[in-house]
């Protein structure tokens, strides 16, 4: 594996917890790898599994879906639905040969800037280890 490989990671961050969480990581001056493209979504329940498929198809090396902790959803139950969906999606992706470590679903609250940085760092290292996923690069 080439050492200068920098993974392209797409992060779907929920508007109420994880996005402010990422914001907090920034304002707290916590460093984390800069390879993640953040897409802000209203809720982790908004992240249609097709978004993840599309991201992989368009060349993302890893996809993160971050939402509020179960029980803390701004829309009360969005992340419960997301949890069921992604539990299945994980198994399906693994089955068709996409390493399951390329998709991360986790919960980050608005107060967890440090946790956000940790999750991102860990995931980036994990994807870097796996190497590039086939498909075209997003920024050419």
């Amino acid at each position, binding site marked *: 594996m080439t050492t200068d490989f920098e993974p392209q990671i797409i992060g779907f961050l929920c508007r109420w917890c994880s996005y402010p969480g990422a914001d907090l990581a920034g304002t707290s001056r916590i460093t984390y790898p800069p390879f993640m493209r953040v897409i802000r979504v209203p809720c982790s329940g908004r992240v249609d*599994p*097709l978004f993840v*498929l*599309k991201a992989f*198809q368009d060349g993302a090396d890893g996809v993160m879906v971050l939402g509020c902790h*179960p*029980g803390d959803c701004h829309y009360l*139950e969005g992340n*419960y*639905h997301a*949890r*069921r*969906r*992604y*539990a*299945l*999606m*994980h*198994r*399906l*992706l*693994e*089955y*068709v*040969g*996409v*390493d399951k470590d390329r998709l991360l*679903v*986790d919960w980050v609250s608005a107060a967890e800037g440090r946790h956000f940085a940790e999750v991102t760092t860990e995931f980036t290292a994990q994807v870097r280890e796996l190497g590039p996923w*086939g*498909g075209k690069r997003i920024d050419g």
Partner: protein
Amino acid sequence: MTDKIRAKARELLESGQVSCFIGYEEGTRGRVRPAFVYDPQDADRLIWDERCTHNLAVYLHQFQRPPRRGEEPPRVGILLKPCDSRSLNVLFQEEQIERERVYVVGLTCQGVKVNGQPEERCLRCSERVPLVYDLVLGSVPKVVGREDYADVVRLEGLPPGERLAFWMKEFDRCIRCYACRQACPACYCFECVAEQLDPQWMGIAIDVPQKQFFHVMRAYHLAGRCSGCNACEDACPMGIPLSLLNRKIAREVETMFGYKAGQDAVTVPPLATFKKEEALPL
């Protein structure tokens, strides 16, 4: 059996209980094709034998709307095998057609054959009597199979790289004819993701990433809804083992949520509900 089916279809059409009866008729080259009987005199076209593999539930979508605006939607009679009756349960569950509008002539089934060979799914099938019917014909067969997911487990056991290679090879054969989707009773969207242009989910190229996207997308859309009638695989002109994909999801849904699609028309499907406390592998 054929005589009884013809008699029942004729009776239903003559009494005006249904305006169309969907069954099977003799096709060309020794094959069987779906038949739509509107006239009682044509009821003698109907047949039933082990070549009748089609899942007729897929045609119910064509009877969802009235022929002319302001009229009542038509009532239909339909011939269903046990596996097809599960599809009908899914349609009831998703409110695609009302129970009162369908007269189901259920058939007990010994398993169907393609080119003289019994279908694999029939060897695994444990349901020999339809789950939903107004009238059931035939005697109950004693022989039942058992679903063991042996082929799914075998594929799961392969290293990820080999599994990827396997699926890439299979998906590469796809010609994007969408026959699998057309044959599927659960695929009834007016506009399929595969053909949507705004947003364009799937590129128009006939290339492996697009085909892979299509098949994974379709498999996921059928999660907790696919009742395993295998119409997609039977329809595939390229012989892609779609059942391996669909049965994998069915198995995961069963182990994770204890749910089997099409068993009844009232249970809320697993992806439409949730439990607050549940340990799911993420």
